[in-house]
């Protein structure tokens, strides 16, 4: 039964999700191209709508998709999440964050078609941009009301990989709250390097915001990274065994 469901998920739901991504992009592209002002904001909104669509397909393919969310902080924030699947990118939309600047690895910017969206939305290639430039771009984005999104593990290969402290350093420098997000189940549904979409229980959870003022000292950002990882991975472990 599980194999049958995996086949159905991969061929029918996966196919429908790809059609959704392609058709929505074809429809939206001329409007986004011709938009004279705030085009980057419109592209981010488009990414949000596309992502909500993917979350809908994930729900169909899952054994239940649950969202547990806290009230978001007022104003902009830095969002940090664990990362073990290509689906994680889309799950953030389930919390209603619709104006996000992603700080990502460079290879995403090299994907056909995707690079138009990545550049159009004003996302940042962390490998080609200096830390000072990232700080400046994020400061400008925060002034425009954006949230900043990081996957601090930087890779999907090891679900328990260290949280690098760059996101937390940025939060410290810009005095922004950090919202930790736990994504569980996507590593079973679509693990790194696989194409088959397995049915899995998915739970998405935001934790209460963390504030840089509570993590003082020269290594405050490192301590904040360690604390965020601990609460996310504790939840990840708990859910993994459900």
């Amino acid at each position: 039964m599980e194999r049958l469901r995996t086949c159905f998920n991969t061929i029918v739901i996966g196919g429908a999700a790809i059609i959704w991504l392609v058709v929505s992009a074809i429809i939206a592209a001329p409007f986004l191209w011709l938009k004279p002002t705030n085009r980057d904001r419109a592209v981010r909104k488009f990414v949000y709508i596309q992502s909500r669509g993917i979350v809908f397909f994930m729900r169909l393919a899952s054994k239940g998709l649950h969202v547990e969310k806290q009230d978001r902080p007022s104003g902009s924030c830095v969002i940090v999440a664990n990362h073990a699947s290509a689906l994680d990118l889309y799950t953030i939309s389930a919390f209603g964050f619709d104006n996000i600047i992603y700080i990502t690895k460079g290879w995403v910017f090299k994907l056909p078609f995707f690079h138009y969206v990545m550049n159009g939305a004003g996302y940042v290639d962390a490998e080609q941009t200096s830390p000072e430039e990232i700080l400046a771009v994020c400061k400008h984005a925060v002034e425009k009301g954006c949230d900043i999104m990081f996957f601090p593990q930087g890779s999907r290969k090891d679900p328990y990989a260290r949280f690098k402290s760059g996101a937390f350093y940025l939060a410290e420098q810009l005095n922004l709250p950090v919202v930790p997000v736990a994504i569980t189940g996507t590593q079973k549904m679509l693990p790194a390097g696989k194409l088959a979409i397995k049915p899995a229980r998915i739970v998405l959870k935001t934790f209460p915001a963390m504030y840089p003022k509570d993590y003082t000292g020269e290594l405050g950002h490192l301590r904040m990274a360690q604390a965020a990882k601990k609460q996310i991975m504790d939840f990840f472990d708990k859910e993994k065994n459900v």
Partner: protein
Amino acid sequence: MITREEIIKQTNEALKKEFEFKDEQLVPTASLRDDLCLDSLDAVDMVIVLEQRFGVTLRQGYDLRTIITLNDLYDFIEKLARTHNK
């Protein structure tokens, strides 16, 4: 005076605790950037962690960019510890 073995032991303990490295990663020839994947901010954090651990200042008057491998790091701390004790 602190021995080289003690420097290696304490450096590795600090790196394991703060950066979650495993013993097998911490070989003297490991490149900080390519093998241990420490980026520029990690390098700054590592320096602060080691300063606190050894009670020496690593940041002033030295070019940290010359430290490529873990062995270079051990050499650097050993040299500083010697200078500090003179």
